[in-house]
């Protein structure tokens, strides 16, 4: 009898305790992260896919297309292209493609890079219905990010054409060679135009 009564009162007490605890939780703030609307910031050492590192002053890539990463990659997923730009001391990267479908995230490329020009990104939202989205143009990504962060896009000097432009003073020398300029400038209307205009507009051959 004594034990039965003790069971009843003890049991009822434990029920009350349980309900007190849950109502306490009820009034505390929620801890859910609303994923598609919010997302976690990944840890500093999160190893996502690689990305190019930007020069904080110019907004350009630090990479000078030495292709060490391309060679270090065991799965052949990196393709780098570079060219020597006019007036630059080193080569500059002009294309950097990562085929993420093949990448095993081993990190050999980052280890191989001597100048810290590539690093792991903290991007983890990597889901797509289309395989092509995983062939990433990291160079383009860097350029668009730089633009978004307020770096003015410096008009690129033509890669292939630039060395062919003769003369140290482009203004007077431009007119005789004008027909040799790229298509955009070679229209009949543009042909008799003053030299400097034609010279500068021949910017991007692509």
């Amino acid at each position: 009898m004594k034990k039965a009564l003790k069971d009843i009162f003890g049991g009822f007490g434990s029920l009350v305790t349980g309900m007190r605890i849950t109502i306490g939780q009820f009034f505390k703030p929620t801890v859910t992260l609303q994923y598609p609307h919010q997302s976690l910031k990944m840890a500093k050492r999160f190893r996502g896919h690689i990305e190019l590192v930007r020069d904080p002053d110019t907004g350009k890539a630090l990479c000078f297309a030495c292709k060490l990463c391309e060679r270090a990659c065991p799965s052949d997923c990196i393709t780098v292209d570079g060219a020597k730009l006019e007036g630059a001391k080193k080569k500059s990267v002009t294309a950097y493609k990562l085929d993420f479908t093949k990448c095993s995230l081993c990190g050999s490329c980052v280890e191989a890079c001597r100048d810290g020009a590539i690093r792991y990104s903290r991007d983890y939202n990597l889901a797509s219905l289309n395989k092509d989205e995983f062939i990433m143009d990291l160079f383009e990504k860097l350029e668009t990010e730089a633009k978004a962060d307020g770096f003015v896009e410096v008009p690129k000097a033509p890669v292939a054409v630039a060395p062919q432009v003769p003369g140290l003073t482009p203004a007077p020398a431009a007119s005789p060679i004008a027909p040799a300029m790229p298509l955009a400038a070679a229209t009949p209307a543009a042909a008799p135009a003053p030299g400097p205009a034609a010279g500068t507009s021949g910017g991007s051959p692509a």
Partner: protein
Amino acid sequence: MTFVSNLLSYLATEPFRLVVCLLAMMAFVGLNAAYLVWVERKGAGRFQRRPGPTEAGPAGLLQPIADALKLMSKQLLVPAGVDSLLFRGAPLLVMSPALMSLAVIPFSQTLTACRLNVGLLMIFALGSVNVMAIMLGGWSSRNKYAIISAARVVSQNVAYEIPMLLVVITLVMVSGTMNLNEIVNQQQGWFWHWNICRVWVNPLMPVTFLIFFTCMLAETNRAPFDMAEAESELVAGAYTEYSGMGFGVFFMAEYANILLGCGLATALFLGGWQSPIPGLPGGVLWFLLKMYFLVFSVVWIRWTFPRTQFYGLLNLSWKILIPVSLFTLVLTSGMLKLMRHFGFGV
């Protein structure tokens, strides 16, 4: 204005009043069933430190509508080999007693669909139909889980009907009537006139309320007594074979029964529409406040306690609730006799 009042008085005449009351009750039950699901899901979320539904509409308020549309647009499957008549009839049978019982619940002094002298008796008579409907649904499904669930429902409800009725008999002895309006009227005044606090008639009155509430949880098959729909053991119990709105109706009936049970507990023990302080005007708002507080407690209990085992469930009823309620019954009748003898009115 005269037009409106004419219309109202016209609607209050008998055949129209019936239709209006029926429509209002069905709308009330439908709305509540839909939004109690929302309350349940929101509450479950908050108890587990999650926000619950948030995407459909502000604070997920359109979620019940989306759920209802989904259920209604689904095909009603009738599996081969089921007892077709019973299988189709069970959802109707489970919903209608809850709706009918709601007719005698006094929402306020004037807002009662049907003032019945034996209102309380009617609720308990129809309450058993609800059990039978779930049993029939499980029985006719031709499904092992459903049949186990049907057997559980019956034994559980038989076990809990007894203490509930004993408690209600206690209360009827104290009130001297089965008319719910009358019972609420007797609880006028300060909140210690409510039946739950009338300890001078029966020192165990609060315990009586707890027994009633526990039995109500068991009768409506709510956690921690949801043996009929024990997902982890019986898929969905008696509702396993039901699809679309067939399941939806069972689901609505569960909430309708919760509403009815909480409304009944409010009227019997918590003073119904009476305000707790004599100065404040009573009314339907007080009733709804008390009823929804009890409904919230039901959700609160569900997300606090794990499901009991079946023998635990029956032990609780036969070894604790029935002896205690029998004791309160004897105690109350003794006290009433003594008080009459010594000339105290109750």
